């Protein structure tokens, strides 16, 4: 059966060149990067080189990047860390209703511990309004955390404006850039951002590796304490293979950046337009312009997402409904609720995300397979029946 992977925002395969660069670190070059002998020093050297390779592409200093076990850890560390470090200055945090759960759940926990959190509304395209950010600031505000690109509907947030506001009010600004890495050029020498979260497995690197950027001069307490790794900021024997793979993946992403974006955007537009044309009552979510190059997010009225996914899976198409992280629960996604969709529409959501291995043929195949699936499910649905009756 033909296999069409359309869930690059959930995770990506490790690119062959990335894997090749990782391999020696499992077996020959396996030394502990904290050790003094040659294999250890070699590991440390290559790990620090990896840090520099990534820093160069993001235009920051290598010492501002700390490796973590992924995006979730980095989000937890950043937010809990700033909350703890600046507790004496205030107890108010500003975020949005459409953040990843790694941000939202941390904020909810902080609320239980006495912090006040403002969860900003977004408009129908998922955009946070910088004016609303500024209006929410109080003299207690210590942190603003707004994501760079939403993982579900692909909307790119106005983080430059938000960051400028944070700067003006001397408030720390964190952004979850997990979906932005490799899909937007990120220039940390220009961006008004204090902390930024990254994850390797969204850019053709390995799972279980990420990084937190912490601008020089900002101190946060450790989330994982113990050994002196990562300049004493993040304990645990370093995953050198993963870190080197991460660096290679970032390099490839930015070396081939223009071509990557152009290809993805063209496939994305073809798919969105094709779906609108072929399937009635299709609603495109998110902003059509300020959008992740590979994100296609649509809602099909009257039917439920999981049954779409299962049907797609049976013809070899892998998609998601809401964030991959939450698809275990299949509750209507908080993001779709926040952009004002009714439950009936939100439940019928489908996210297809395009990546570097997606072809024109894949898009054609989806446009051929999906319409009859939607039709079949709708004909089984009591809601469709009612809607038709009403017309």
């Amino acid at each position: 059966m033909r296999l069409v992977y359309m869930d690059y925002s959930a995770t990506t395969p490790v690119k062959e060149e990335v894997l090749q660069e990782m391999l020696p670190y499992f077996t020959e070059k396996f030394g502990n990067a904290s050790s003094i002998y040659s294999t250890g020093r070699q590991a440390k050297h290559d790990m620090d080189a990896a840090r520099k390779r990534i820093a160069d592409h993001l235009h920051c200093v290598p010492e501002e990047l700390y490796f973590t076990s992924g995006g979730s850890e980095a989000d937890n560390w950043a937010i809990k860390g700033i909350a703890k470090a600046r507790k004496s200055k205030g107890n108010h945090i500003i975020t949005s209703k459409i953040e990843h759960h790694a941000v939202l759940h941390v904020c909810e926990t902080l609320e239980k511990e006495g912090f006040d959190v403002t969860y900003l509304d977004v408009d129908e395209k998922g955009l946070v309004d910088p004016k609303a950010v500024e209006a929410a600031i109080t003299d207690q505000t210590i942190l603003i955390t707004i994501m760079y690109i939403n993982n579900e509907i692909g909307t790119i947030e106005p983080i430059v404006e938000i960051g400028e506001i944070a700067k003006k009010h001397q408030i720390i600004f964190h952004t979850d850039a997990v979906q932005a890495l490799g899909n937007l050029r990120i220039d940390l020498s220009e961006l008004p951002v204090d902390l930024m979260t990254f994850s390797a497995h969204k850019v053709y690197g390995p799972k279980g590796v990420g990084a937190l950027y912490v601008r020089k001069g900002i101190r946060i307490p450790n989330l994982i304490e113990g050994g002196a790794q990562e300049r004493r900021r993040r304990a645990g024997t370093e995953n050198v293979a993963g870190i080197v793979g991460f660096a290679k993946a970032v390099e490839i992403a930015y070396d081939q950046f223009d071509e990557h974006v152009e290809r993805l955007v063209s496939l994305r537009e073809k798919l969105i337009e094709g779906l609108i044309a072929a399937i009635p009552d299709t609603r495109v979510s998110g902003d059509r312009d300020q959008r992740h190059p590979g994100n296609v997010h649509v809602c099909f009225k009257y039917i439920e997402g999981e049954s779409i996914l299962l049907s797609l899976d049976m013809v070899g198409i892998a998609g998601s409904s809401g964030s991959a992280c939450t698809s275990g629960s299949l509750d209507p996604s908080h993001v779709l609720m926040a952009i004002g969709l009714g439950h009936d529409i939100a439940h019928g959501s489908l996210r297809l995300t395009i990546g570097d291995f997606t072809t024109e043929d894949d898009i054609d195949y989806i446009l051929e397979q999906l319409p009859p699936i939607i039709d079949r499910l709708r004909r089984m649905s009591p809601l469709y029946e009612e809607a038709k009756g009403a017309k």
Partner: protein
Amino acid sequence: MYTEIVMDHFTNPRNVGEIENADGMGEVGNVKCGDIMRIYLRINADEIIEDIKFKTFGCGSAIAASSIATVIVKGKAVKEALQLTNKQVVDALGGLPAVKVHCSVLAEQALKAAIFDYAKKFGKEYPELEGFDPDADDDHHDLIEEIGEF
């Protein structure tokens, strides 16, 4: 995740559709939860379920549970159909993931609701329906979700 039986009933659901002027019709669930099941019954004078159809808005297991429930009770006496438990539905499907067990509950409830409607219309009394409220909005969904699974 799903057994072959579930996938079979999801892909080729039995008894999908409507019955015009049904003798009993029941609907449970709501859009909020993401599952709505509607069951139509045609019941003859001997209180035998002659025909049964369903329409379901919901996930794969909701569709499969509806389908298999209709298969189980079709041709049975109403009194027998009232004995259907969600456990039987789960077993007949060869099992359901813990987070999906509520779909089998919905199927049981939808059938009961349809029989309730029939009983009301035709002035029948079934002790099994004592205290049954077709509009009750059970929170079994969240309840079961908490159990989780790997």
